[in-house]
């Protein structure tokens, strides 16, 4: 069993390494950014039981911070990425402190409302470029010229490294004592509190971590596509990341990654359908909630285990 697992992981890594020679690199990079975003969202929902319906505010603001630092202030991209993470973390702290005061469905509505507030601010604030967004963010070499990223394939490996860093960080959190306490709070908050854990602190920390990683994903996307726009802070984007996690499988490790690839690919192929993409996305939401609540990874996992038992 373990052997199979290593083979599977090795296969994925080989795929990731040869990917840009087979598939258009910009597509892969975009998908990786969304995959990291979906993993960050899933960290909060799957392991802290908190469903944020406003995660676009961290993703989108990460992009704006990156764009502002690199384009307007003229600083190197690594500073931009740090700014994206730090900015999103601060925003996460400010909104998280208030949002965790309510639970369940209210938490979702509160995060949604805060994201809408951030959206309205982005429409008006001068540093976001309003409706135009920030365009033409320059691609400068990383680490003082050590790693050139003008070339899409070279940039791909940087983005892959960022994604793997984020993915590994999330796995580290989940399997640490912190992650165990988080799960305990998710399953029975009163019990965890009675054992002396300060539930609110753990939830807030999880929220800030998730926000920071979403900010990293947004900043990386701005580095790849060289623009940051209102779409990435909109409520539609918040819904999209929920859809990615849901399609792949909530609370599974690989689900959000698979879900992100599926949704980004779908959007690429269906781009010509215009408004119909929304209809299809909505229909997927309905079908999954009604019939496939475990998502792709969950259902495939069940099928695999059933087969193993039978064979």
């Amino acid at each position, binding site marked *: 069993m373990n052997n199979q697992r290593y083979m599977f992981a090795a296969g994925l890594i080989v795929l990731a390494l040869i990917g840009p020679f087979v598939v258009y690199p910009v597509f892969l990079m975009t998908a990786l950014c969304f995959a990291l975003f979906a993993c960050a969202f899933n960290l909060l929902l799957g392991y802290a039981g908190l*469903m944020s*319906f406003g995660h676009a505010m961290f993703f989108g603001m990460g992009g704006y911070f990156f764009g502002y630092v690199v384009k307007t202030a003229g600083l190197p991209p690594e500073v931009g990425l740090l700014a994206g993470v730090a900015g999103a973390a601060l925003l996460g702290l400010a909104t998280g402190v*208030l*949002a965790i*005061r*309510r639970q*369940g*469905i*209210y938490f*979702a*509505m*509160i995060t*949604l*409302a*805060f994201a*809408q*507030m951030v959206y*309205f*601010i982005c*429409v*008006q604030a001068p540093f976001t470029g309003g409706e135009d967004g920030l365009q033409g963010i320059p691609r400068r070499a990383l680490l003082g010229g050590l790693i050139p990223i003008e070339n899409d394939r070279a940039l791909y490996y940087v983005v892959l490294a960022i994604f793997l860093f984020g993915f590994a960080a999330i796995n580290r959190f989940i399997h640490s004592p912190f992650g165990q306490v988080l799960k305990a709070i998710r399953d029975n908050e009163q019990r965890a509190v009675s054992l002396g854990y300060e539930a609110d602190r753990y939830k807030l920390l999880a929220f800030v971590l998730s926000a920071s990683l979403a900010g990293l994903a947004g900043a990386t996307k701005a580095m790849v596509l060289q623009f940051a726009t209102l779409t990435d802070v909109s*409520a539609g984007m918040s*819904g999209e990341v*929920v859809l990615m996690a*849901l399609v792949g499988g909530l609370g599974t490790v690989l689900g959000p990654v698979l879900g992100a690839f599926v949704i980004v690919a779908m959007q690429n192929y269906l781009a010509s359908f*215009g*408004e*119909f*993409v*929304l*209809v299809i*996305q*909505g*229909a*997927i*939401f*309905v079908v999954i*909630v*009604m019939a496939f*609540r475990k998502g792709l990874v969950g259902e495939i996992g069940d099928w695999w285990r059933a087969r193993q038992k039978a064979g």
Partner: protein
Amino acid sequence: MLDIFSIPLPALFGQLLLGLINGAFYAMLSLGLAVIFGMLNVINFTHGAQYMLGAFAAWLLLTNLSIPFWASLVLAPLIVGLFGVVIERLLLKRIYHLDHLYGFLLTFGLALVIEGLFQWKWGSSGAPYPAPIPGGYNLGFMFMPAYRGFVVVAALVICLATWYGIERTRLGAYLRAATENPTLVRAFGINVPRLITLTYGLGVALAALAGVLAAPIQQVSALMGTNLVLVVFAVVVIGGMGSIMGSIVTGFGLGLIEGFTKVIYPPASNTVIFVVMALVLMVKPAGLFGQTK
């Protein structure tokens, strides 16, 4: 004294009237959300789309069948309410036993489908709906368009009628009892599943009625309810969903606050409701009229 904070009085009252109208819609929509949530334990994300459907139904009835506004005021909520009943029977019914979040996700998906289809068929630009009561009155300190005055009064009547229906009638008593303890109410021989379907249909019809009232004020467009429902969520968080009267008061109050902000600091008018929400969460996390459960 003709001005406050050096703002001309007609401008102030004009904005307050606008605020009152917005507040009327917040009140009607949050009322519907609260009624549905109380009974179904589902936050109806489709509420904005159903509000849009109400406006569209009125517009389509007028342009295709020349059915006047006053008839649409009854017909449109009936049509959209029936559509809501179908949704409840086909979809929502099957997920009551799950976590609330699934209801939220399901209705979010439905909203995307409905709004996407309408956007695809009719585009995003709005269609005008002629005001059913033309003209207006000069009140001395401001000009009051007759239809807008009517909307405020009509919304108040609708809200109070809903309150009366739920708090003072026999059917309302069944409803409240079924919210508290559905099993017991069922044991008394009341058909609770039918009551639930009825509640959803009524909540949806209320959203559609708001949409019909909004049609002559706003443009009728596929996305007219998209942003509105997000603001209404904030209104619901502020008011708490425990009390019907609370929803009404919070809705109108926040509309007025928004209108007032538009006068003293226009750039903040979009965000002021969310700021109020943040303040309420700091002071009274359960909402102004809510009880912590």
